[in-house]
Every structure is written in structure tokens, then in C-alpha cells.
């Protein structure tokens, strides 16, 4: 394992940023969110939870899928031979589809917590299964994930319930695992991509085998803390694959959804929510077709010209949690679509969250 002094972290960031785009927690106007690092940015790896999760790195809130260029063809040109080929019909507005660009440069996501790293696995199951989403795939292939252990888990954390180890990022799908021990950052490459990144920053790292025992102590300490957390004993026994009928028709929903505003806060801060909308924006010479995050909590999520299949907030509320705790596990060998990051616990304006849902069904028994 390697180490680098915490005082020296800015030079580490600078070094990484000289070869890669560096996406990491940045403090801006009092809030810490993932953003691209530059010399003026205020890096913040002390804050346990960024407001938005790091899923932006692979699935940004807004992404251009393609542009459609429109060229108006004057009537006399439209009648020319070229157009005749098109089944003898003249072309009036010519459309040209220009696909969006895939990410083709490696980039680094620094400081992702183990729960968010599990979030990537959850999204992989969606975007890389069946039909592969190439926009996501290109980002996944080029993203190098540096995960950071959670030095001091907070009361809203419950990742251990989903079998995530907040103490040891080396058990995750990250490329590099890091810990903060005393005044040092411990660096341990896990994959080939991680080794490549390590080679770039090697000059700044010290090979330090003495730190191993300290890391073990840190892991033990974090594990102990996470056992004491109030949500540590949350039971998921009742949920999971195949519980659709039992849970869907339960009366409890009609009580617990009350007060839900139908905003998208929980969805947008969640590391696993991946529903999106595809929209057009009319630009100067054509149309930009982009996708953006969407929330199943919004009243127009399923709205069609002829009405919608989830007209009440109760149904929309139920859909979100059923999807996370029942439907997704049914399709993905029991893996839950929640990683216990606790962001919804902290951010919901009305203090609703996935834990309260799980507990509401538990209390009923």
C-alpha cells in the first residue's frame, strides 16, 4: 500500500488532473457535490455525503443523445433527381441525425464512498444488460473509480444492511481503494485501471508497508461504529424478489404516502435511481435531443395523451419503493436497488424515506 500526506492532497489532485479529468467532491456555495476539479475548486473529501451521489459521472443529469440538423430545401431543388430516388416524393425539410459523442478519454472519479460504488453496480445491471446503453458503457469503460472508506459513518447510514462494507473499499468494484488514517491518505490499487492511475501519480506516493496495520485498525474502528448506528439492524427479510402481490396490495401504502410532495429530491440524490426522460430542445439550426433524469414521483411521469396509469401520488410513491425493493430484485437475482447511503433520509423535505417504508411494514406484523 502507498501513502500520501493529507497536506499534499492538492498536488495529488493537480497531478491526476494533468492527465485525466478529475471528478470529485467539490464544495461550492456551502454544499459539497461532485464536480470537475480545477485549481480554483475547493476539494472536500471530509464531508461524508455529497448532496447528489456520484452517479453523475456515468449517468449525467443531462446528456445530449443526438442532434437533428434541419435544412430547408427550396421547392425547385426539391424536385431534382436526387430526391426522385426517394420513391418519387420531393423532400422539403431535410433531416440529418448527428449522434452525440461518446466519452473516449479516461477520467477519474475520486472519493466515491463504498455505497455509491455499489450504486454503479446497480446501474450496470440496468444499462449494460439486454440492450447496452453505449453512452453509459463508454463512461464506464473510461472511468477510473477511486473509492474512499467512510471514516465516520453517520446515523442515516445503513449500507451494511445491503452487505456493503463502508470500512473496506477494496471489496467493491472500485479501481483504487483509499483510507484516511491519521494525517495520511492510504492508496491501494485494485485493478489494472487502478494500477495505471497509480503509475501516473507514483512520484507523489510513498511505498509504506508499515501502514497496513493502521488500515486494519481503521477498518475495525469503522466496522464497530457501523454496528452501533441506529439503522444497523434494519431487516429486509420481508422484501425482495417475488413479493409483488403481497406488498403491492398492502393497505399500509395508503397511510405512509401521505404528505409526499411529489418532488424529485429523493430520486435526484439517489445513487441508484436511473429513470430518465428524453426531450427535444429547439436550437438555432435544428433540434437537440437530450436525456435528463426523471422521477417516478412526478405527476406527469406516465402521463399520455389518453390519461395515465398511475394517477395518484399513492401509486407513484408505491411504484418508487416497490421498484427498489421488489421489482428490481426480481430481475436481478435479489440485488436491491438501494445502497443504504441515507441521502433520502437526510434530504426528503417531508422526512419520508426508504427506511420509514421498510419499518412501516415491519411494525405492521
Amino acid at each position, binding site marked *: 500500500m502507498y501513502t500520501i500526506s493529507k497536506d499534499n492532497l492538492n498536488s495529488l489532485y493537480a497531478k491526476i488532473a494533468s492527465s485525466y479529468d478529475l471528478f470529485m467532491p467539490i464544495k461550492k456555495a456551502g454544499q459539497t457535490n461532485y464536480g470537475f476539479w480545477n485549481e480554483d475548486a475547493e476539494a472536500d473529501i471530509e464531508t461524508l455525503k455529497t448532496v447528489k451521489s456520484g452517479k453523475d459521472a456515468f449517468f449525467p443529469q443531462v446528456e445530449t443523445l443526438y442532434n437533428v440538423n434541419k435544412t430547408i430545401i427550396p421547392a425547385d431543388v426539391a424536385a431534382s433527381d436526387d430526391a426522385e430516388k426517394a420513391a418519387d416524393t420531393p423532400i422539403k425539410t431535410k433531416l440529418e441525425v448527428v449522434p452525440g459523442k461518446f466519452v473516449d478519454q479516461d477520467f477519474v472519479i475520486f472519493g466515491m464512498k463504498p455505497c455509491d460504488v455499489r450504486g454503479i453496480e446497480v446501474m450496470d445491471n440496468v444499462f449494460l444488460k439486454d440492450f447496452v446503453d453505449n453512452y453509459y458503457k463508454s463512461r464506464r469503460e473510461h472511468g477510473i473509480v477511486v473509492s474512499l472508506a467512510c471514516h465516520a459513518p453517520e446515523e442515516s447510514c445503513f449500507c451494511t444492511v445491503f452487505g456493503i462494507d463502508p470500512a473496506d473499499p477494496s471489496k467493491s468494484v472500485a479501481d483504487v481503494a483509499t483510507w484516511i488514517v491519521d494525517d495520511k491518505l492510504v492508496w491501494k490499487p485494485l485493478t489494472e485501471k487502478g494500477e495505471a492511475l497509480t503509475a501516473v501519480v507514483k512520484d507523489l506516493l510513498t511505498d509504506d508497508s508499515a501502514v497496513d496495520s493502521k488500515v486494519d485498525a481503521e477498518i475495525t474502528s469503522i466496522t464497530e461504529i457501523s454496528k452501533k448506528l441506529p439503522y444497523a439492524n434494519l431487516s429486509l427479510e420481508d422484501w425482495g424478489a417475488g413479493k409483488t402481490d403481497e406488498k403491492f396490495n398492502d393497505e399500509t401504502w395508503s397511510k405512509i404516502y401521505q404528505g409526499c410532495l411529489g418532488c424529485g429530491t429523493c430520486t435526484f440524490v439517489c445513487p441508484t435511481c436511473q429513470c430518465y426522460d428524453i426531450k427535444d*430542445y429547439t*436550437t*438555432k*439550426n435544428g433540434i*437537440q435531443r437530450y436525456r435528463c433524469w426523471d422521477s417516478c414521483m412526478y405527476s406527469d411521469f406516465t402521463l399520455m395523451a389518453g390519461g395515465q396509469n398511475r394517477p395518484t401520488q399513492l401509486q407513484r410513491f408505491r411504484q418508487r419503493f416497490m421498484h427498489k425493493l421488489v421489482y428490481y430484485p426480481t430481475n436481478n437475482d435479489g440485488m436491491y436497488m438501494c445502497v443504504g447511503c441515507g441521502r433520502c433520509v437526510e434530504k426528503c423535505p417531508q422526512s419520508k424515506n426508504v427506511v420509514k417504508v421498510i419499518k412501516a411494514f415491519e411494525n405492521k406484523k
Partner: protein
Amino acid sequence: MPMNENNEFKPLIVAFCCNWCSYAGADLAGSSRLTYPENVKIIRVPCSGRVNPMFILRAFERGADGVIICGCHPGDCHYSTGNYYARRRMALLFSMLEYMGIENGRTRVEWCSAAEGAKFSKTMNEFCEKIASLGENVRLGDLRCKN
């Protein structure tokens, strides 16, 4: 940035004109052979009270450099009171835009009757000069509309 033949900045102006006074004023300016810049794009509205603050913001978003609202003189509204409501609304909106850090002068309200063709042309000329001196609207525009 749109330029004229002398390589000077040619601003895009959107003018919301009420059907009964200002639009007729613009008409009179035209038939009296009074000139005003061709980059003023007139949008006819039934009344200055019809101008939703969002229209103004949308015009800026989609590339306007200045927006002017023209209505009947207070007291002369075809619907008797429409321009009074518009006056309050625009006062608040303009103050808000200033508060958000948008340069003063990009927006304007001018009362102009059907008989004031000369005033209409003069106002437009002045407004265009003012906007030209302020330069391109960067703060309120949407980048996507530029390419």
C-alpha cells in the same frame, strides 16, 4: 454575434406591441416613411397586459439582446386597465432582473399611441443604440440557441 457590414454589433430586439396603440403607431411610422432598425422584431399582442414575464425571459433565452414592451398610454388602454397591471408587473420584473445581475437597460416599457409614429421610430432607434452600447446579451441567453 451578428454583425452589420461595418463589423459593428447588430443587436436583436424583440418588441411586444399592443394591437390598439403601439402596433398602429408602428404602422404609422412605416406609412410616414420614418425609419427604425430592421432588427427590431415586432410581436403583436392584444394588450400590454398580455405580456407574461415569461415571454420576456424566453425572448432573452432564445437570443434577444433587448426586449421592449409598448402599450397604450396609461388611461388609454383599449381594455381600460390592462396597461396598469402591466406597469406593476414590469416594474417588479425589471427590478428583479437588475437584482439578478442583468445589465440595466436591456428591458424597457414605452407608452406609444397610434398617432405617435414619430415617437415609435425614435424610441426604437434610441433603444437599439442603447442595446448596441450594452453589447450582446450573454447573461440571459441559452448557449444551446446559439449553435
